[in-house]
C-alpha cells in the first residue's frame, strides 16, 4: 500500500514540473526506484492510474527502472549487491554495512505536450 503514498509525492512533483515547463499534458513519466523500497510495479501502476485521474498526468505511461541494493562493508571495504535479502558481507562475513544504492526514488524524465497558450 505504500505505493499510494509514494505516487502522491510523485504526482506532486510531476504537476509542479508540468506547470513550470508549461506542459498541457504529460504523456510519460520515467522513475528510478531503488530495490530497498520494495515497490511492486503492478501496484505502482495501479496507484498512478488511479491518482492521476483529473491531473495533467492522466493517461500517462509510467516507466520504472530498478536499482539493485548495493552495500559497502565497513570492515573490509568490499562493495556488493544484495539480492537474496542477506545483508552480510560475502567477503569477510561482517554485518556493519553502509547502503550505497537502493533507496532511490527519482523522476528521471518526463514527456509531455506544450500548452499553446503559453506561447503567446
Amino acid at each position, binding site marked *: *500500500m*505504500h505505493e499510494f*503514498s*509514494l505516487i502522491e*509525492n*510523485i504526482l506532486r*512533483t510531476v504537476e509542479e*514540473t508540468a506547470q513550470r515547463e508549461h506542459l498541457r499534458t504529460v504523456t510519460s513519466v520515467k*522513475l*528510478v526506484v531503488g530495490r*530497498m*523500497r*520494495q515497490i511492486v510495479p503492478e501496484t505502482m501502476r495501479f496507484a498512478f492510474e488511479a491518482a492521476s485521474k483529473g491531473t495533467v498526468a492522466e493517461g500517462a505511461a509510467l516507466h520504472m527502472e530498478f536499482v539493485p541494493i548495493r552495500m559497502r562493508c565497513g570492515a573490509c571495504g568490499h562493495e556488493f549487491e544484495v539480492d537474496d*535479502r*542477506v*545483508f*552480510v558481507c560475502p567477503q569477510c562475513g*561482517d*554485518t*556493519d554495512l553502509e*547502503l550505497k544504492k537502493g533507496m532511490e*526514488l*527519482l*523522476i*528521471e524524465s518526463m514527456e509531455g505536450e506544450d500548452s499553446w497558450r503559453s506561447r503567446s
Partner: protein
Amino acid sequence: MKNVLESNQDKADEIRSLLKREKVLMVNLIGSPGCGKTTLLERTIEKLKARYGIAVIEGDVATDRDARRLQGHDIPIVLINTDGACHLESISIQGALAEFDLASTDIVFVENVGNLVCPAEFDIGEQAKVAVSSTTEGEDKPEKYPLLFREAKMLLLNKVDLAEHVDFDTEVYLESVKKINGTLPIIESSSKSGAGMDQWYAWLESMVTELRG
C-alpha cells in the same frame, strides 16, 4: 533527475537541526497495529517523567483512542490524525513540535501509524527509529520488512512473555534479524511482565546523555 521525497527530506533535516540545537531526543516508534507501542509508551512515561521532560506525538489513522490513553499521564501530547494515510511525514511533525515548549522537553516520542512499511520510508527528522516487533506477529517480519530493520537503531522484541503461548521461536527470529541487520541491538521486552524494560530505559538515558554531549 528530481528526488521525489526531497521536500519531506528537507523538512526532516530542519527538524533534526532544531532538535540538536534544543538538545531534544526524538524517538520514532514503528511497529504493526497491536504490537504494543502505546502500552510501551505508557510504562516509559510512568518511569521517566519524574526525571525527563517528555512529550508525545501520536500518529493515528483515525480516532483519538491512543492519545486518550496517554492523556492521564499529564504530559504534552499532540495528536496527528492522518485521515487514512499510513505514515507521518515531516511537515506534520514540524507543526506538532511547534506546540511543545522544547526548552523544558528532553524526549519526544513519536508513535507512528501502525505499519511496518511506510513509516520506515519517510524520514521525520528523528535521531532514532525504534522498531517494535511482537512475538504474536511471528518470526518472519524481519525478512518481510527489511527496510525497517535496517533503518532502526534499536529493536524491541515485545511481548516476550507470550512467546511460548504462540509458538514463537526466538532463536529463529534472532537469526533472521542478524541476516538483515547484524549490528542492530535487540531488547527482548514485555510491558506487562517488565522484562527488558530496564534495558530500554537505560538505552533512552544513554541517548539523552549522548545528545547533551
